[in-house]
């Protein structure tokens, strides 16, 4: 618990929230857990045509310690599940998860013996992006919505 929470529910905390949330929502550094087709669409999102950099999310960190948003793009098999779990656990607070694509949200068309039926079985998910694979715009929509959600948080929530 940091000292920013000392003020409890007060006007000061609300102003601190404003500043912190502004920072957090404008610089969501992603960790890309890309496995399948959705990762290709994520590449599109990073390409010049769409440019994810506009949202401040261009700095892809490959170390979970430095990332803020875990973007799970693609099918997660049961074999992959412990890896995903570990990466999520190793991320530092505050952290958010965007589940990109039908497979990731619900298992999608792979309703069979080896596919996790939605990553929510393993880790908490903040935003779901439907589509198989979702368009780059849909991924941006999730990022923008996540930014909106972050802006409503309070530093007290994560203490």
């Amino acid at each position, binding site marked *: 618990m940091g000292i920013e929470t000392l003020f409890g529910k007060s006007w000061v905390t609300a102003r601190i929230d404003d500043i912190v949330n502004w920072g957090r929502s404008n610089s969501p550094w992603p960790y*890309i*857990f890309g496995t399948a087709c959705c990762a*290709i669409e994520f590449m599109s999102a990073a390409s010049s045509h769409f440019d994810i950099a506009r949202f401040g999310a261009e700095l892809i960190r490959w170390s979970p310690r430095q990332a803020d948003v875990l973007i799970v793009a693609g*099918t997660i*098999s049961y074999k*992959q*599940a412990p890896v995903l779990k570990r990466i999520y656990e190793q991320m530092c607070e505050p952290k958010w998860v965007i589940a990109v694509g039908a497979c990731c949200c619900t298992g999608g068309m792979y309703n*069979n*013996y080896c596919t996790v039926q939605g990553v929510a079985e393993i880790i908490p998910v903040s935003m779901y992006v439907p589509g198989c694979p979702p368009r780059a715009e849909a991924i941006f929509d999730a990022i923008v919505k996540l930014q909106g959600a972050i802006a409503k948080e309070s530093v007290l929530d994560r203490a």
Partner: protein
Amino acid sequence: MLTLVELLNPLVGGDVVSLEETHGGVYAAANPLKIVGLLTQLRDDARFSFDMLVDIVGVDASGLGGVDRFQVVYILASTAKNFRLSVNVRTSAEKPEIPSVHAVYAVADWLEREVYDQFGIVFIGHPNLKRLLNFKDFVGHPLRKDFPIDGRQKVPESEDLHDEMKVKLERRGRAFSSMRIGEYGGEHGEGEETGDDPFIVNLGPAHPIVHGILRLLLAVEGETIVAAVPELGYLHRGVEKSMESGNYHQVIPYTDRLNYASPMMNNIGYCKAVEKMLGIEISERDALLRVILCELGRIMDHLLCTGPHLVDLGALTPFWYLFQVREKIYDIMEKYSGVRLTYSCVRIGGFPFPLYNGFFDDVESVLKDLMPAIDDVRRLVERNRIFYDRCCKVGAISSAEALRHGFTGPCLRATGYDYDLRKNRPYYSYDTFDFSVVVGTNGDTYDRFFVRVYEMIESAKIIRQAIARYKALSSEPAALEAKKSKGFKKVAPPAGALYDSSEVANGELGYYIVSDGSAKPYRIKVRSPSLCNYSAIESMVEGAMIADLVSIIGSLNVIGGEIDR
């Protein structure tokens, strides 16, 4: 010149039990206990010279009748004589055992492991018969017909792969200390002396170069890799099991997601196989359109291989240039099929929708943009000393070794071996197009990179010719052959089996389809080019440096969906 059947006839009664020719392919049945001798003979006999094992297919034939429950099909190719042969052996449910052929064809190592994993057929003499796709403690064999499709099993923790690493290091006369963290006290290496044990480091699956799906356990000395243990299956999605649950058309969406870099080529390859089984001949117009889509797909795939390969090498910018072209192709395909990536826009017997007006203009504009993009990238890397040093003589593989590992496509051609199914076993009148097969010389990363680059240029040539021919056909809009036949749900090929393949961006994509005469496919096995291309990874990276590994994996274009299915 004698045909394959005539050549094989003398063997019937010996190692070969029976021989038949259906769907234009030769299918033999053999005695399982003598399979090693038979394959060795077929490989070494100059009359056959079956130098490549294309695939090993397992089939649970419990629903097909017959005495023995399991079939194992070896699909062989003779690149020199241009023969194809499927050798079928059967084994019983009680004691499913077959001698291993890994000594005959190196690629059989992994292919047999896959069959063992999926069907529980034991390959006697296999050096490392472990599961390939499912995790180690998985119970049951998923592709057996009695395994429930939703038989999910959770896995608590990833495997440590120490057993394989130990064997590999010991084979090289090195010790492996499997000392775990915390097993000895202190932070600074008190405890027993370790001598010169290599350093064990795990790479992947969550690592940028392995695309999230591969895992390698490396033993390194300094920067040099002493031994590597690859692990697959992190993207195993049970595609082949799922394919058995729908009808023939419902398989198409699964094929999209095999090689998600170029989905339409997978669609077309599958439809081509089913059409062959049904004996359907598609119209010339549809064939030309398929050629155009195939080559667009090839361009897409190569763009997606070359760009990220350079990113892995640290040259970040070319990726963005190449992706812009890919984005344009997305736009065209979206206009045509409504989807950006997973099109499913091909049907058995033709196409579901007519072309939109201006399709060809759009394609032409993509081709126009392609050349400047390729030129930009070539200007950035072709005479770049750093790129040259990073790629030249890295991950080099000889033609013979490549064939033993079942290499196909650009990876095989980079070794200087001129083998392209579009020329050697032409379909859709590819042989009438004017294009050249791009071959390399050294089989190294540099060659693989530039074979892909120049193949894009050749593909553009083919597309231009195909468009010209298409336009020369009658002016009426593309007919909906499949819709006219109203045969969407009634696709039910005659009972039997067929292997059909096409040249996709990564190499030979094959479908082995077993039909029991019903409207549901009994078994579909996908022959994935990436799996075979990747099978040589151990020998390629050993002795190389970690930075070379990056370059090698990038140039092999390993697509997870295809490897793990």
